[in-house]
């Protein structure tokens, strides 16, 4: 069923003291969809992702993933259901060689369930995964200490870490931030390919031009509220969205 709703969010809210970071947001995510999550800085994109993946507990509301309620579940439980996320700030194990960074997700119960990654095989699987994402296996890059790699590679290493978990739903939190144009151009087709192969993707992004090339639907957030939801063009034409991005005209 291509139209099956896999992730359902109902009236989700999160307040940090007096600030409402996410304010009564509801939407459904279809199988195989490529959803863009956009909005100005501080509009609640990362908080929404943290809520879905269990890193932050919601104040109120309900999250359902494949008919199973996951509201307030631990991050590792949610990850094992197949929701994999990347981090906005680069979070890699700097002292380990790049490919060893993937050992952690490959060691998880989810990957064990798929039968992959027995003793001694995980290194090979990790290098295969990195090879697909542009860390050529015959070069020195996958074996280098992660801390010595350039930013663009670290971002892609984070993407590889997400893919190592064999996700059903991939949530990318500003993957392209800080990447060079050429790196974005190289990474975008990879993500498109994952989507074509049936992976559902949610992508929070500030680089709208690149995002609109791949996303079939966008949700626009502003001050924690959903102000638009639909195909990119229609969403961006909405007056509220234009105001949120460009500000209101000063009258007088």
């Amino acid at each position, binding site marked *: 069923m291509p139209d099956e709703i896999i992730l359902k969010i109902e009236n989700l809210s999160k307040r940090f003291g007096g600030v409402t970071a996410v304010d009564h947001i509801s939407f459904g995510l279809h199988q195989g969809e490529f959803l863009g999550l956009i909005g100005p800085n501080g509009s609640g994109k990362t908080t929404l992702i943290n809520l879905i*993946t269990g*890193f932050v507990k919601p104040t109120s509301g309900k999250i359902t993933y494949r008919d199973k309620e996951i509201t307030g579940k*631990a*991050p*590792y*439980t949610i*990850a*094992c259901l197949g929701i*994999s*996320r990347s*981090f906005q700030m680069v*979070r*890699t*194990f*700097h*002292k*380990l*060689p790049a490919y*060893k960074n993937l*050992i*952690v*997700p*490959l*060691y*998880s*119960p*989810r*990957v064990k369930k798929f039968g992959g990654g027995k*003793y001694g095989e*995980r*290194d090979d699987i990790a290098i295969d995964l990195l090879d697909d994402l542009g860390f050529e296996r015959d070069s020195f890059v996958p*074996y280098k200490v992660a801390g010595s790699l350039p930013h663009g590679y670290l971002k892609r290493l984070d993407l590889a*870490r*997400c893919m*190592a*978990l064999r996700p059903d739903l991939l949530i990318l939190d500003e993957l392209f931030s800080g990447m060079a144009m050429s790196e974005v151009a190289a990474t975008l087709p990879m993500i498109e390919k994952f989507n074509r192969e049936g992976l559902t993707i949610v992508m929070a992004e500030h680089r709208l031009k690149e995002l609109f090339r791949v996303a079939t639907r966008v949700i626009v957030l502003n001050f924690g509220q959903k102000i638009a939801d639909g195909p990119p063009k229609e969403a961006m034409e909405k007056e509220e969205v234009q105001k949120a991005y460009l500000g209101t005209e000063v009258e007088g």
Partner: protein
Amino acid sequence: MQEAVRYRRERIDRGIKARSDTIYTLASHRDMLYLLLPRVLPILALCCLPLLMGSSYWGKVIFYSCIFALLALSWDFMASVGLVSLGQALFFGVGSYVAGGFNHYLKWPIFLTIPAATLGGALICTILLVPVVRLRGVYFSMVTLILPLLFAHLIETLEILGGTYGLLSLTPFPNNWLAVYIAVIAVVVVLFGFRRLINEDFGLVLRGIRDDDRVVMAGGINIYWYKAQAIFIAGAVGCFAGALMTHYYQFVGRSAFALDYTILPLAGAVVGGPGSFAGATLGTFILVPLSEALRALGGLRMALYGIILIAALAVLPEGIFHYIERKYHQFERNVKI
């Protein structure tokens, strides 16, 4: 006028190519010797030392050093998961009392009490620490600091397990050689076992938890379960040390929970260089004999000991082992600029 020639120190890695942590391309016997020597030499030294010292006073010191080395290894293992323990005395004391209790009340023989104390003690320690495994950093440390004090006071006020008198006349080892060699072999096994384990996939997950537990959670791994496993492993080593000491002394008392068993292993690990296990072992094998040698000074002993500790940390903050390791893997030469 002739200008003064200036030199710059240049550091060069010795020419063993390692493709990864585990795969070496060995070219010659010299290379093999280069890798084997730092591993074989300490093992030989550890095995020969008790023979050289015999049953003298210094023979006993070797036994104590091994006990503290085990505690330091256990500390270093917890630290490599990000759990900074200030309560190695908890492991030591629980192990001591479990072994002592089984021996005193149930008359279990020594070859049963020690395994029982190792596994049972580790289980008790894990159950005690699991509720606080969610705490991080100094908060976790505080709890570990309090637990041994709590036990010491419980035993004193409730007068359980022998109260202030302790449990007396427990079964001794058949002979001292056996005790010393069990301790020496345990140190070697734990040292090389830990060094191996921490580089396996399981160890990578543990180190990942220390470096960034959020990434590990995003990788679908239940970090609390892995922390509990790490506490069990470290606890087993600490409890084993406690059980050995109990039977060696033929006595167990409240002193098993004393601060000494926390501070000395910690100092050993820090002076030796934490994170490598070898450093923790080396550190305790320097500090314990040193503290014995200073006994001749009487009252000034602790003061001088403190000064030596501070000096060691000020001169070599990275730890003695890391310094030696660096010197071994690199050579330096002067280059003209």
